């Protein structure tokens, strides 16, 4: 039998002598060996060849190889411990940086929280000092041809000492009207021609004007008196009054100009709140029973609440020189007037 032409038998015999066959395969090989003399002889040759190689004595590594490997291990251990030391230093540095960062973040958060808390529970904002300018009476030019100089206006500076004054935070007066354009123009002109009050107008939305008014109680009374002339033009009048509690307000619906002045005149916030509550109740009852006269159950005598004195329409040419009584007093009132038209 030529084994070069039957490599599978050769492989099988090799696997047999290497003990790499299953029990069934081993039995098959043993059967072949028993039956075939040539295969049996080949098996013996392979076994002898293998035994020859396996009999070779193992070579021991020379001493210098073992010493070299030991040296290698020692240097490796030293490097490992050195790198571990460097790593631990790096780790400590990294930890320190993280701790510093964490502390910075905590300080930042505490600062932000402090600012938020201060804003919520801190004292009310004080009004910035206001410098009001009272125009002096205009000197009319004479008919003399000599008097050809341009008209000069003398101005008297009046300082309203409002520094460190806490305002009466009425918060807002919301006025709704169908005739927005005419009413808003009137309000605008009224404010422009009232030099004893300071105002800021915001008109960033069509059909809505917001006026922030800073004035004295006398100035507010004068303004309310003027506003009363167009009060009938408003479909809805609502006053929102601040309370001591943050976020809590008293809402007085169908409020009247003199009621606003009355509330502002109260010397303490408790009295203002109490009066505002009374007006709120009275106005709501009045809406249910129109035409009835109602009296507020306040300690002091109240004016007639349901009978508003008929406003007197003033001419467009207001005399700025004749300020109402108390209009130039200390600024105490901070009120937002919101005039809106119907959508």
């Amino acid at each position, binding site marked *: 039998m030529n084994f*070069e032409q039957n490599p599978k038998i050769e*492989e099988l015999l090799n696997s047999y002598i290497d003990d790499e066959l299953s029990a069934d395969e081993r039995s098959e090989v043993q059967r072949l060996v028993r039956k075939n003399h040539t295969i049996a002889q080949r098996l013996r040759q392979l076994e002898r060849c293998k035994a020859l190689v396996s*009999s070779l004595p*193992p070579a021991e590594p020379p001493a210098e*190889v073992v010493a070299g*490997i030991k040296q290698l*291990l020692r240097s490796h251990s030293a490097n490992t411990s050195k790198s571990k030391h460097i790593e631990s230093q790096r780790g400590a540095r990294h930890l320190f940086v993280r701790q510093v960062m964490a502390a910075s973040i905590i300080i930042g958060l505490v600062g932000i929280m402090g600012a938020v808390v201060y804003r919520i529970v801190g004292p009310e904002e004080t009004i910035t000092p206001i410098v009001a300018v009272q125009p002096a009476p205009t000197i009319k030019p004479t008919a003399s041809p000599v008097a050809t100089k341009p008209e000069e206006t003398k101005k008297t500076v009046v300082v309203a000492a409002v520094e460190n004054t806490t305002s009466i935070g009425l918060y807002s007066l919301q006025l709704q009207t169908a005739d927005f354009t005419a009413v808003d123009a009137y309000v605008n002109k009224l404010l422009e021609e009232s030099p004893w009050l300071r105002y800021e107008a915001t008109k960033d939305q069509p059909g809505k004007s917001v006026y922030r008014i800073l004035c004295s109680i006398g100035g507010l009374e004068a303004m309310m008196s003027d506003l009363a002339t167009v009060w009938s033009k408003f479909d809805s009048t609502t006053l929102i009054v601040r309370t001591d509690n943050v976020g809590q307000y008293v809402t007085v619906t169908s409020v009247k100009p003199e009621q606003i002045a009355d509330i502002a005149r109260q010397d303490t916030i408790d009295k203002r709140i109490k009066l505002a509550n009374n007006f709120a109740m009275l106005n709501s009852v009045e809406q249910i029973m129109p035409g009835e006269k109602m009296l507020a159950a306040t300690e002091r005598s109240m004016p007639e609440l349901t009978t508003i004195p008929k406003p007197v329409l003033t001419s467009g040419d207001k005399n700025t020189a004749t300020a109402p009584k108390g209009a130039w007093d200390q600024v105490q009132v901070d009120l937002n007037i919101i005039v809106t038209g119907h959508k």
Partner: protein
Amino acid sequence: MPATRCIIRAKRVAHSQHINVEDTVLVQKWRQGDPSAIEQLVCKYQGRIYNIILKICSNPNDAAELTQDTFVKVIENIGKFESRSGFYTWAFRIAVNLTLNYRKRKATVGFTSLDAELAAGDEQARQGLSAILSDDKALDPAQIAENRELCELIQKGIRKLDEEHRAIIVLRDIEGMDYEQIAEVLGIELGTVKSRLSRARAALRQILEAL
């Protein structure tokens, strides 16, 4: 993960994959910072690795250098060793690859004086070898090992094999690896191991008969 749990897990994996548990535990210990573990592994395998390198490359000086190179590679790369195979086959693979690559680079070195050496060889040893191969003489491995001249002849026969055949004969018949381990070390299929080993033994027999 605690060290003990890591070692238990490594042992379980080693058992399931028929890998040497002791080696696996030592590798695990080394990874956990025990430098003595790698020393134990090196001591365990340095002789065997030197032996197979010497049998493949046939030059003691080269074998010494390649053995050191093998352990440099082992120490450098043990962090990348994934324990999918055993440390034993992994280290031997490094050794065999280094040796075969080295032999390829120095292909001209080796057998230049072999014929002359054979001509001057012991005639008695040659006759003994012939008798063993022809099945006329009883085979006693101990006697063969003691017969220096006969061993020299066999080693010369092995050196005449080509690299692939020499490596597989050394791994199987000298190192005693099973076919699966050989496949892993040489990076070949199990079927290739069978056919290559069969051809290698046939070639060796022819060489030895011709000596």
